[in-house]
């Protein structure tokens, strides 16, 4: 696994996002490190409120106005994003990095045709003619599995189902052939059957176009398996990151193990048995957070967990933020077969 930083498309070091709230300051993202290599799919997994969406908005430069961003390094293809002007940032957005949002029903402007909304980014960034942009839009709509693509261009968002709209959003994200696509829970709002189609489509397109993808999800069960690497977030931190097979086979952090044991396995989990759950709730991120954020819910918490654990390197690209990452107190759950 190459860790030569020059090859990495995205480098994030000690990224922090603070949001002023009534009770003080909400530390939504608390110093996370990760990187994305060209053409790979990184999955960012975590519960709601763990900071994964804030991370994606920070990468895109779309944070809420009141949010404050700090980072030791936030580099996209060698470009320092922390010092980039808003104007230069908007030159990157949609052109070299684009985003697919969770809610396809509201993410498209109801007042304009699909063609208009698909084409405008390409026209803005590449200065192509409307006709050329339409041809590209038709090609991509067909590529994402939409029939009668030419006629669809003149339709409005409300004339399409949620699944179709999300396909349109994917096509829109691909219009300028970006190097990086950030997909923020793109399948969460969809029916399960549609979810599987969209997942497969994203994976295919990612491999076909060689686009790097950051896939954000709360679903460690199915969704995360399509990724090359997985980073698990908890309470604003990345608590474990590893290549996907390693993470499933040998989870290093008790939270990851907890998440994995929550997933019912067909044929293994007896019908009618109680599903596992991690007891307790995520701590408040308002104000200063000291020590391991998971210790209140952790089955193996020790006095040392009052101190902030270091990021331990377990093997190669496998890291976990736990004092016991390299010597689990309880036995890890049965490794599951990875397809």
């Amino acid at each position: 696994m190459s860790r030569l930083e020059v090859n990495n498309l995205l480098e994030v070091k000690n990224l922090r996002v603070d949001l002023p709230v009534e009770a003080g300051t909400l530390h939504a993202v608390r110093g996370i490190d990760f990187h994305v290599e060209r053409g790979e799919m990184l999955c960012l997994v975590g519960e709601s409120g763990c900071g994964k969406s804030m991370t994606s908005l920070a990468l895109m430069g779309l944070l809420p106005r009141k949010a404050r961003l700090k980072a030791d390094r936030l580099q996209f293809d060698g470009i320092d994003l922390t010092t980039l002007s808003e104007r230069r940032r908007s030159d990157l957005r949609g052109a070299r990095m684009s985003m697919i949002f969770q809610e396809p029903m509201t993410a498209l402007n109801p007042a304009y045709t699909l063609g208009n909304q698909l084409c405008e980014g390409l026209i803005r960034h590449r200065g192509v003619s409307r006709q050329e942009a339409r041809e590209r839009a038709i090609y991509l709509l067909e590529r994402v599995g939409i029939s009668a693509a030419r006629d669809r261009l003149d339709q409005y968002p409300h004339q399409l189902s949620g699944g179709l709209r999300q396909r349109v959003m994917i096509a829109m994200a691909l219009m300028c052939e970006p190097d990086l696509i950030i997909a923020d829970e793109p399948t969460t709002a969809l029916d399960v059957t549609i979810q599987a189609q969209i997942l497969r489509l994203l994976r295919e397109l990612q491999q076909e176009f060689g686009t790097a993808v950051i896939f954000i999800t709360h679903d460690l069960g199915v969704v995360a398996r399509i990724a090359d690497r997985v980073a698990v977030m908890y309470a604003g931190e990345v608590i474990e990151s590893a290549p996907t097979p390693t993470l499933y086979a040998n989870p290093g952090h008790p939270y990851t193990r907890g998440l994995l044991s929550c997933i019912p396995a067909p044929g293994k989990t007896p019908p009618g048995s109680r599903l596992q759950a991690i007891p307790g709730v995520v701590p408040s991120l308002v104000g200063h957070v000291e020590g391991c954020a998971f210790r209140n819910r952790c089955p193996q918490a020790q006095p040392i967990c009052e101190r902030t654990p270091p990021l331990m390197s377990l093997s190669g690209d496998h890291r976990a933020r736990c004092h016991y990452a390299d010597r689990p107190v309880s036995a890890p759950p049965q490794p599951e077969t990875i397809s």
Partner: protein
Amino acid sequence: MGTFIVRRILIAMSVALTISIVSFMLLHLSGDLATSIAGPEATAEQVEQIRTDYGLDRPIVNQYLDWLGGALTFDFGRSYYYQSTVVDLIVDRMPITLTLGGLALALAISISIPLGVLAALKRDTWIDRLALLFAVVGQAMPSFWFGLTLIVVFAVTLQWLPAAGSDGWQHFVLPAIALGYYATPAMMRLTRTGMLEVLESDYIRTARAKGLRTGSVIFKHALRNAIIPVVALAAVELGFMLGGSVVIESVFSLNGLGQLAWDAISRNDYPVVQAVVLIIALFYIVLTLLADVANAALDPRIRTR
């Protein structure tokens, strides 16, 4: 879109017919028309004479159908007071009211929409507060008082513009400002709220994620959606300004439709009253129709429903 417009026109026509019936009946129920036309000093014979001369002795349905038959061919009879037909009177006065209303609306739109957008973009800053102050003053100030103030300042003291009359464009400046300011606050605040709501929406985030320029995000993606309710309000405001400009017309001595209606009511000039009521109702109906069509043009969800 075609069937949509046809359906709306049919609805508008039935509304117009209903209004004409209701206003005709109300006028005849308001008292004995023959007595009020004849005046307090008339004898019983004179009243009876007027009743038969004006056809007021016939059944009310027949009277209405006669009037409707005339109205459909633009014949509203003769004025009891002026020596001319009702149509001539209206044609004479209408341009003044239309000019005033049109100017006032143009002024109101060109101030309220940019100001509303600006207030939304600069939310909670001094610009926003200043815009709010401007709106509150406009809503609180009676239009006749504002009109008089304008006259005192610009016509009497500075002598930049005439105070009364309707001979040239200069005569319309002050009344249009007075009437337009009255319509501005509601439209401005609706634009501001609409923009604030739309700017928070997911599709604006999508537009920004595409890297579109700020102008394109605000004007193409946000304003187009925020403006939809403002269009409907603008139509109502114009209807109000055409029908309700009586106050401003009398402050500035503009001989418009409002002034005509006011005079006709005080002189028991019923054919004129009846016709002006219908004309103003038709204004409202046509404007509502236009607002519906404009809304449908702006919002594809309406026209393809």
